[in-house]
């Protein structure tokens, strides 16, 4: 089959690309469009390093075909900051040193942003369950959770940026 032509809105910009049926959205982001922020940790839905938001829902881009993006709005890690201004989750990841090697970080930040978009005031338990599909082999998760809870407080206007 000839390559498929797909039009989607990626990080707010209308984007056209060509892909093969079997290419995943992650393959398309990294290898076709050149957005290499989303990572491939497992390619089987287990690690969450490839997390993106599609029409408001958090998904693994490794478990979605590129052709399925037709007509959809997709947010990747590259679309989380507002220009030069970091998203509160990104800022707090830096402040809390919530990363070491950083491989899991794009996925965790996208997943945390999706959580706070949906639930501005999560409990720590809710945050931990929400992020259970994002594996990190370095941090032990504690600093990640501190960063997410702190970012939530900032976004609610209860703590300083």
């Amino acid at each position: 089959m000839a390559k498929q032509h797909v039009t989607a809105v990626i990080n707010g910009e209308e984007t056209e690309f060509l892909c093969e049926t079997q290419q995943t959205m992650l393959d398309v982001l990294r290898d076709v469009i050149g957005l290499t922020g989303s990572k491939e940790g497992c390619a089987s839905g287990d690690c969450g390093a490839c997390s993106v938001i599609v029409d408001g829902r958090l998904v693994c881009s490794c478990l979605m075909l590129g052709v399925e993006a037709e007509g959809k709005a997709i947010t990747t890690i590259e679309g989380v900051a507002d220009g030069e201004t970091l998203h509160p989750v990104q800022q707090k990841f830096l402040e809390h040193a919530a990363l070491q090697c950083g491989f899991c970080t794009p996925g965790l930040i996208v997943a945390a942003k999706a959580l706070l978009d949906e639930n501005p005031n999560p409990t720590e338990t809710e945050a931990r369950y929400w992020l259970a599909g994002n594996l990190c082999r370095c941090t032990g998760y504690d600093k990640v959770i501190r960063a997410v809870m702190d970012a939530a407080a900032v976004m609610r206007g209860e703590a300083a940026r």
Partner: protein
Amino acid sequence: MSSLNYAAPTTVDEAVKLLAGASGLAKVLSGGTDLLVQLRAGRLKPDLIVDTKKIPGIIGIRKGSDGGFVIGAATPGAEVEANAELNAAWPGLVEALDLIGSTQVQGRCSLAGNLCNASPAADSVPALYAAGAIAVVVGSKGRREVPVEQIPTGPGRTSLAKDEFILEFKLPPRGPRSADAYLRFIPRTEMDIAVVGCGINVTLDEKGVCTAARVALGAVSPTVIMVPEAAQILVGHTLDADTLAKLDAAAQAAAKPITDKRGTVEYRKKIAGVLARRVAAIAFDRAQGKTNGKAH
């Protein structure tokens, strides 16, 4: 480079024609959380993928003419979980689907995919069986309504013809004092495959005596199984110690598990009994309005 074709039809007729006309293996795509893993691993080499998600009604939840819920086959877990009315009427089915995978997997995984992937350990399937759900199947010969327990025939196999797929699931109308529950046993709290799963759905009378019951077990047989012997033990009784003991024994007797890395035959049988007791207790409590919280 490759010959894998993709189509995203917008009508049932178009989808059925594509499936019927496919030269080699054609696979229906819902959330892709099983299909894409199998594609990637090379375990599956289809010639055509038919993405049915653009067909109206295949995603979404509505009430049917009989007052029962109708759930679109490809509705993602996250959307099912967010439906308050469905949660109130079918807490067991919702909690079972909600157990699948992570938040990311919930963004895509569907009842139809879980049922048609036909894993014996599929979490939403015992709850679907216990609910008495009906699959609305469409194909070249038209539309037929099939009890969900007639769909899986073995690990990874279903009774659907090449040109058939599931459009939606119908749940029976909910009367008073009726509730369901699902529990699985896993060694951790998230992201694991059931060692045993159990779904139970009951209706009680004013005195708390069971008038109707359905019991299903997962991961103890090549497919999820109905256990009518266990359901019969509940009917006509309250959940007293004697009934619980008999239910436990019936669940253990029905379980025909294998020994694998998740557990031995003896262990799984024992767990099947324990889960049956616990799930029955939750379903009875819910039916009497004692709890409406989640079992997890």
